[in-house]
């Protein structure tokens, strides 16, 4: 009897050791904790985006209250970088070298992420699901430790191009774009999407600088080209000016507006709601102001989450839906990692999501990645402004 017990004990011990051996960790992970780093602009000119970092923090407080992920608590360490790239470098180094996080998640801003792009890849620390729409984050060959999340600007523009080709094969397109990498990304996407027809269909291009006071003269110039489709690649202030000016001079093209400037409050209201009627744009997650989702269970859940864990946040702030959705994606990645919390495995799992979705995304939009596709969300749904609110129409379209 005694020998048997000893045998059993030995076997159990061996099993336990084997199980323990399967728990693989890199710095920042342990049996009880996963450390996740982040930088956000909590101060400075872009501080409105800070709501994203705060929402993610609240999300992981909720997850920890519910017992964590595979029994581990998530410590979300987020620092203010004031949207200043040198500060992002400093904070990213602090997170990686001093706080010893497992990886960075949702670091925000194109210039900020550019500043740490090389560093993260040299260090082989994941720069996961960055919060910017530039297309360069999907480059697994050269930067295997960096991954985007939201649909990138080129994807979105390709989708508009497809819609134009389908609905108006005879379109004459005028483009207004901001003269920087963001504007050029969109323009390239449009050209790629139109393919061979890009040369004949795009009849006019005008650009503006962020420092310009208005875009009125550009609109007049574009109207005179005789275009019947207008692709408006502008940030909020200029989007409002462009919508208003086009309406005032009696130019009535089919108007595509980039997703960056779809805010009813800060773009369409200043432009004039009736003047904005008919504008087409796109979306990929549920808008908290859209009456259509008033009784949606996922949005109800989101509201309950907001009230309990982020009460100082706003229930009409789309950034909080964004943050919640992104955090839910990471939740799934970490769940998939199981007990193998190495940096390599985090990237591997993040790159093997197959048609996964979180219910705050629009119906039909899913997250799919692979070893050579680091662009998680690649589809959007078109929406049209009816003079009061955005109305989704058509099917979910993918940019590939």
């Amino acid at each position, binding site marked *: 009897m005694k020998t048997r017990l000893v045998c059993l004990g030995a076997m159990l011990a061996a099993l336990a050791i084997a199980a323990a051996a399967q728990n693989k960790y890199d710095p920042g992970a342990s049996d009880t904790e996963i450390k996740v780093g982040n930088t956000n602009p*909590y*101060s*400075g*000119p872009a501080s409105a985006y800070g709501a994203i970092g*705060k929402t993610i923090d609240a999300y992981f407080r909720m997850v920890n209250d519910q017992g964590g992920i595979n029994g581990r608590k998530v410590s979300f360490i*987020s*620092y*203010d970088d*004031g*949207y*200043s*790239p*040198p500060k992002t*470098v*400093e904070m990213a*180094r*602090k997170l*990686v*070298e*001093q706080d010893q996080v497992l990886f960075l998640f949702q670091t925000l801003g*194109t*210039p900020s992420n*550019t*500043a740490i*792009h*090389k*560093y993260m890849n040299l260090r082989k620390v994941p720069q996961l699901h960055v919060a910017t729409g530039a297309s360069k984050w999907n480059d697994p060959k050269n930067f295997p430790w960096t991954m985007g999340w939201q649909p990138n600007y080129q994807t979105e523009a390709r989708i508009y191009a497809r819609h134009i080709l389908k609905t108006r094969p005879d379109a004459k397109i005028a483009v207004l774009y901001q*003269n*920087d*990498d*963001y504007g050029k990304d969109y323009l390239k996407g449009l050209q790629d999407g139109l393919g061979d027809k890009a040369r004949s269909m795009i009849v006019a291009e005008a650009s503006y*600088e*962020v*420092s310009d006071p208005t875009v009125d003269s550009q609109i007049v110039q574009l109207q005179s080209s005789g275009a019947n489709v207008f692709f408006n690649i502008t940030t909020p202030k200029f989007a409002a000016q462009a919508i208003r000016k086009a309406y005032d001079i009696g130019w009535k093209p089919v108007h595509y507006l980039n997703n960056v400037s779809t805010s009813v409050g800060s773009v369409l209201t200043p432009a004039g709601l009736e003047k904005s009627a008919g504008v087409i744009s796109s979306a990929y997650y549920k808008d908290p102001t859209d009456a259509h989702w008033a009784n949606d269970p996922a949005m109800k859940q989101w509201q309950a989450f907001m009230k309990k864990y982020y009460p100082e946040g706003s229930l009409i702030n789309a950034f909080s839906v964004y943050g919640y959705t992104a955090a839910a994606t990471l939740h799934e990645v970490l769940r998939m990692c199981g007990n193998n919390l190495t940096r390599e495995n985090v990237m591997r799992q993040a790159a093997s999501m197959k048609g996964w979705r979180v219910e705050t995304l629009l119906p039909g939009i899913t997250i799919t990645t692979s070893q050579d596709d680091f662009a998680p969300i690649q589809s959007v749904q078109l929406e049209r402004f009816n003079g009061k609110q955005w109305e989704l129409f058509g099917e979910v379209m993918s940019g590939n």
Partner: protein
Amino acid sequence: MSRRSLFLGALIVAACALPFLVSSYRTFQLTLVLVYAIALLGLNILTGYNGQISLGHGAFYALGAYCAAILIDKAGAPYWAVVPAAGGVCLVAGFLFGLPALRLEGLYLALATFALGVAMPQLLKYHHLEKWTGGVQGIVIAKPEAPFGIPLDADRWLYFFTLGVTLVMFVLGWNLLRGRIGRALVAIRDQHIASEAMGIHNALYKSLAFGVSAMFTGVAGALGALAVQFVAPDSFGVFLSIVFLVGIVVGGLASISGALYGALFIEFIPNIADEISKAAPWAIFGVFMIGFVYLMPTGVAGAIRVLWRRRSP
């Protein structure tokens, strides 16, 4: 006097030992402290010693940083050569900016330099310059490695390189300010009519002060670019200029060592403030600033000087 040189020697030994005692992230932060110290010394020459207020020194810092980045990225220049080059460019730019600025006094000069600071990020985005500046995307540069097989990692090597440049710049500043030129600058600050009567060429000295000050700041900008390995217009907002001014006031106006204290303040206090409160980091920063100015009205350097005198009768 010998006590002071003993103290300086100890400080240099400590500065050399420090990177081996702390993590490479801390080493990086210390490098930034040295970089800011050079920039603050530059601003102190202009504002502290010569009494000309500049709210636009971030622009010269940006100019130095971009000079370095463009020379490395486009011309393939070695990193050690770009630092004096950036200093030279900023010397000329500062001198030229100083000429029209001569006609402006006090607050008006502050406004003119403020305009420079505000304009700089937008000028860097200007699309005809994009070929060199990289537009909003900026320029990514590689980190210099230690030469001759010296067994130091890139962070430590850059720290020692920066330390060397800092020592050179401080000796330069010390020689400049302790002598005839320094006294002339102070005389102009305190009583410009009397200084003119003493035979000081006010206009020349004021423009020179501008040029030299810009040169120091430009050298700091170049070293900052090497440390951060990235330059972009968003890195050099007008806030940077204001932080520099905060640095010299907190550190101690018209004090060489004050630049070092000011640099420690602007590097570490924002991080401490952020750790205390995520919601209002700048409010905490403000409290620190008011506390420092209230407790040490002549800056940290001034307070230390007073303590020093009390202890040595």
